[in-house]
């Protein structure tokens, strides 16, 4: 289903739309306030964008440097060209260690690779330990936001879900009670896990270490307790040097939630004694995106979610309306690169207002890339005949002053004299909730001819 249809569905409950919009706008405002506190914020964005551009231009060298340093530290490094290979590598590591119980901390990459169903099919228990991810997991849904995965759920809905799955008492949606209950439940899972899977926020070429940012400390809990730690990362997660973290950590937390820093910025440099640490480096379409000049900068993304919080469409259509692992503006420029036909409606789910590009901490020109994808899509994906013909004809009319005059007169005549039931028919999406402009006696051309003669 296209974005517009899902968005229309979401908008049937206006009270919920208002709530969703306000919840995310609150995060956007928190971000503004926190960014205002940093002298040189715009400079910091420039620097971050520059570092990412450098990384993408020298990705091969940095990746090899990273692998070498990680291996020297005793980390086992694996390479996966796609999701399937990633999942197979993870399965193999788990099988080699006879691991049946896995705790995961938030990783959009494992979502992208659909790792959970893959492991579950092999009889492995996978528990998402980030509270928001845990909520969507037991609800059998996907995250609707990359930082706030359960933002589409009200606390009352979570209450009901916990009653069903954790046997909690009805609490009227008491966040403290519900969080505590989840914590108790998850603690058991942590203590009994055979392996921990985490994502990677930054992989440092210079040291071969990785950094994972969480607010709940669940990446640490998982990886410190289990014997095996598997960290999955996209190839674009590389940063050259440890000191670059000073740029990215400051930008990431403020952009994501308005915090000065995430509660935990956990550095993993080598396996603990007697334990194993694996890093799976995944391509899954990224090199192809890298090869597209117009869309390359989409790989700058550090997954802060700020573009979602600011997007007036995302806030009013919900993350699931995008039907993609990464929703919102950034998802709308990444997803078409993976499956152009499936995601062809996403670049049109925007007014091109440009707010996303302005909040982006690594300065991805998101709205410009949306415009560029549109040009690609009308050429490569079959378009609705009516839309296509109207626009093609319009192209001819607007290039020809006589046709333009004629069309203008016709349109004005129709607007003025056609009966209301024809003008406001089902075919007129504009007129469903909006009146059409009232037509004046003359257009400006006619007025000008009479009033000004130059």
């Amino acid at each position, binding site marked *: 289903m296209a*974005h*517009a249809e899902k*968005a229309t569905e979401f*908008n049937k409950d206006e009270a919920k739309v208002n709530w969703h919009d306000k919840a995310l*706008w609150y995060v956007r405002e928190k971000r*503004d306030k926190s*960014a*205002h506190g*940093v002298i040189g*914020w*715009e400079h910091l964005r420039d620097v971050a964008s520059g570092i990412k551009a450098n990384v993408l231009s020298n990705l091969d060298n940095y990746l090899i440097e990273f692998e070498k340093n990680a291996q020297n530290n005793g980390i086992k490094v694996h390479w996966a060209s796609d999701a399937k290979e990633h999942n197979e590598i993870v399965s193999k590591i788990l099988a080699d260690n006879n691991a049946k119980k896995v705790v995961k901390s938030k990783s959009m990459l494992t979502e992208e690779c659909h790792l959970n169903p893959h492991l579950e099919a092999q009889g492995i228990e996978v528990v998402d330990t980030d509270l928001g991810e845990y909520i969507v997991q037991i609800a059998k849904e996907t995250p609707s936001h990359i930082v706030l995965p359960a933002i589409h759920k009200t606390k009352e809905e979570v209450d009901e879900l916990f009653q069903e799955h954790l046997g909690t008492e009805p609490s009227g949606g008491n966040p403290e009670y519900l969080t505590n209950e989840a914590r108790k439940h998850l603690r058991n899972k942590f203590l009994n896990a055979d392996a921990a899977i985490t994502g990677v926020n930054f992989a440092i070429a210079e040291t071969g270490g990785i950094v994972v940012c969480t607010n709940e400390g669940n990446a640490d809990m998982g990886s410190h307790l289990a014997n095996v730690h598997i960290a999955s990362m996209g190839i674009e997660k590389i940063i050259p040097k440890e000191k670059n973290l000073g740029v990215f950590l400051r930008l990431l937390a403020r952009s994501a939630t308005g915090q000065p820093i995430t509660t935990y910025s956990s550095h993993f440099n080598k396996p603990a004694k007697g334990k194993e640490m694996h890093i799976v480096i995944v391509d899954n379409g990224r090199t192809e995106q890298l090869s597209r000049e117009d869309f390359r900068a989409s790989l700058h993304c550090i997954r802060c979610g700020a573009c979602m919080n*600011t997007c007036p*469409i995302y806030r*009013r*259509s919900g993350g699931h309306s995008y039907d993609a692992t990464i929703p919102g503006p950034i998802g709308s420029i990444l997803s078409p690169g993976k499956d152009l036909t499936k995601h062809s409606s996403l670049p*049109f*789910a*925007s*007014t*091109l*207002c440009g*707010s996303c*590009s*302005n*909040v982006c901490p690594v300065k991805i020109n998101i709205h410009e890339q949306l*415009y560029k994808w*549109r*040009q690609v899509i*009308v050429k490569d994906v079959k378009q609705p005949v009516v*839309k296509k013909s109207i*626009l*093609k004809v*319009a*192209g*001819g*009319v*607007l*290039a*020809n*002053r006589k046709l*333009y005059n004629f069309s*203008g007169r016709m349109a*004005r005549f129709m*607007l003025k004299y056609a009966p209301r039931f024809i003008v406001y028919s089902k075919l007129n*999406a*504009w007129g*469903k*909730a*909006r*009146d059409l402009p009232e037509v*004046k006696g*003359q*257009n*400006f*051309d006619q*007025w*000008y*001819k009479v009033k*000004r003669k*130059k």
Partner: protein
Amino acid sequence: MKVGLFIPCYVNQLYPQVAIATLELLEKLNVDVYYPSTQTCCGQPLGNSGYEDDSKGACQLFVENFKEYDYIVGPSGSCIYHVKKHFDILEQTPDVIKVRNNAYELCEFITKILGKTDLGAKFPHKVGLHKSCHGLRGLHLGSCSERMDPHFSTEENLLNAVEGLELMSLNRKDECCGFGGTFSVFEEAISVKMGKDRIQDHIDSDVEVITGADHSCLMHLEGLINRQKKPLKVMHIAEILNKSI
């Protein structure tokens, strides 16, 4: 200084009063202004819909119409933005480059090129300014709420100089109204919801008249206001700046 007046296609056909106000305002400011009579459209509706290639004829015609002028001035930030930003699809001849470099949105032309802010207008009403996205984030007519730059606003400067005008402060300073060209039709539900929310912000802020430098956004908002019979008037900023009762 010869100025070519660019009137966007929908303004020409549907909002002649906006075009007239723009022309009169420029004349009052002693600008030598001409209206090339064979102009049509900047091609933006096509480009934004993905049919940029089909808009080349319209873009080329635009250049033909305006190449002889020192400045091209139009009462619409988004059309001007399109000329400056997206005429890269044409071969970059000296004419095309000249047109792109010298195209100005009306408010920016008045403040930056003419160096004027007080135009002697009077308008004793509570006004809410809708900062259209392409003017704001595309042409940088003002600072954007997302960026940590010092505050400025071309339109606010002009409106604050209007006698009797009270510029009201909004809760969300520069959120999109949801028009977005063909977006308004193909994403009808979201477009309408965004528009309704913008209007509510103006109502909550005691606004009597919504204004802005882009009439396409205003057309969308006006359509909603009229349908819902909300107590708000909609006027293009040129109409307010041209008032001298």
